[in-house]
């Protein structure tokens, strides 16, 4: 069986500016990838390029064996990509529920199930997108990525702006969906440790290139690599009570 996602020597950017060079990686069904790197290293550009939202230069992207390199973004979504963008891009003039039903595709993820992981959205189902708080918009953006029932979900900083208890819940749900339902995921996150615990593999970008590819577990246990590539330093534990 071919890998779900095969990216080969992908180069892309915005207009004249080349941001990504020679990106190659594969992801199997039900595998998850942590996409890490400092600020401005090309993480969001890579997500956007998988979706066809950047200026393509060279290389190829295959999803489920099919070449989608030159397909339009909506065709890629239909082929099995779900996306939660960093800016959230909620439809402001639609209600919470309409934001979900407008794009829902058949599968395990339904409006009810999205409401089950984010009860706050159920409370606000009839409120307009424009009336949501920052964190509520984030929940809705993640819900929309799931409700297209994708083969692979692309989450760009999904935990940003969420209360700690919601982050816990979300990570539990993602872990379960990836392990037990075979959904694949690529997750961009500023705090590496938060996602190394539940992803299978990790790649680190620097200036638009992959500088490290590893399994998540070994990277999590390698303070030297974390420090070199992400500037993450060990802090004495026990600083916080409880």
């Amino acid at each position, binding site marked *: 069986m071919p890998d779900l996602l095969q990216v080969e020597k992908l180069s892309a950017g915005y207009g004249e500016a080349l941001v990504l060079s020679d990106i190659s990686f594969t992801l199997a069904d039900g595998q998850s990838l942590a996409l890490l790197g400092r600020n401005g290293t090309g993480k969001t550009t890579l997500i956007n390029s998988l979706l066809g939202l950047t200026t393509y230069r060279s290389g190829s992207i295959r999803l489920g064996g099919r070449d989608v390199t030159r397909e339009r973004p909506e065709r890629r979504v239909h082929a099995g990509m779900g996306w939660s963008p960093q800016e959230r891009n909620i439809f402001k003039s639609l209600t919470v529920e309409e934001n979900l039903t407008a794009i829902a595709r058949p599968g395990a993820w339904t409006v009810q199930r999205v409401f089950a992981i984010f009860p706050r959205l159920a409370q606000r189902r009839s409120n307009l997108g424009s009336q949501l708080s920052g964190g509520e918009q984030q929940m809705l953006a993640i819900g929309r990525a799931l409700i297209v029932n994708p083969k692979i979900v692309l989450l760009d900083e999904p935990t940003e702006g969420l209360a700690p*208890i*919601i982050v816990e819940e979300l990570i539990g749900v993602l872990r379960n969906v990836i392990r037990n339902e075979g959904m694949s995921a690529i997750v961009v996150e500023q705090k590496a440790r938060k996602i190394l615990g539940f992803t299978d593999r990790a790649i680190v970008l620097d200036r638009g290139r992959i500088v490290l590819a590893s399994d998540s577990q070994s990277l999590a246990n390698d303070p030297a690599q974390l420090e070199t590539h992400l500037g993450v330093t060990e802090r004495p534990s026990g600083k916080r009570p409880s």
Partner: protein
Amino acid sequence: MTAPVLETIDLEKKFGGLTATSNVSLKVAKGARHALIGPNGAGKTTLINLLTGVLRPTAGRILLDDRDITAVAPHRRVKLGIARTFQINQLFADLTPLETVSLAVSERLGAGKDWWRLVGRRAQLMDEVAEILEGFRLTDVMDERTAILPYGKQRLLEIAVAVASKPRVLLLDEPAAGVPEDERHMILSIVAALPADVSVLLIEHDMELVFQFAQRISVLVNGALFTEGTPDEIARDARVKEVYLGETTDA
């Protein structure tokens, strides 16, 4: 607790049938390092919008140094010493950090009335601009267009602009949102190092930062004050764990 610099009394804000702020009586002490936490949609940003005057409360009062400012316009409140930052940057994309900070300092000094002199020739003003840029580690990018700066630098500039107004109360709405790990601590250490008489009210979901920064924490739930206390008290509070913190100890 020392005398509050900023105080709300039974503050209430309704949007139609939705009560976003419900009888909030909050005191921010002079020189406070105070954090405001709570579930998503609890009304934290709404409260900041009430304090800055962007929203008018449905009922209740806001006092700054015992003076009632409930009806004072937002731009007048800045002159009175209340400054804020936004969850999503509100910067001039086409200006450089140097121009942006110069503009903020000029505005505070009323330099608009001194329009015939080039800003760059006003030594005192430029000294202060240089000091702020250096303090926020923006000197190396001060001539770049803001739009192309890394997000972490943009967040620093957002705070620098607020600080340039020499506020007595600084309201920070998720200053670390979208900022990489190695720069998060820098943001809060810069804020923590502000003059002792500047009071800071911080909204943030990164508990590592909150517990490192705050001397006092207020918890907002469903628009109302749920509890208040020292970081130790809040971290041990089972009800706060249940509605907000979860089991995470260092997210």
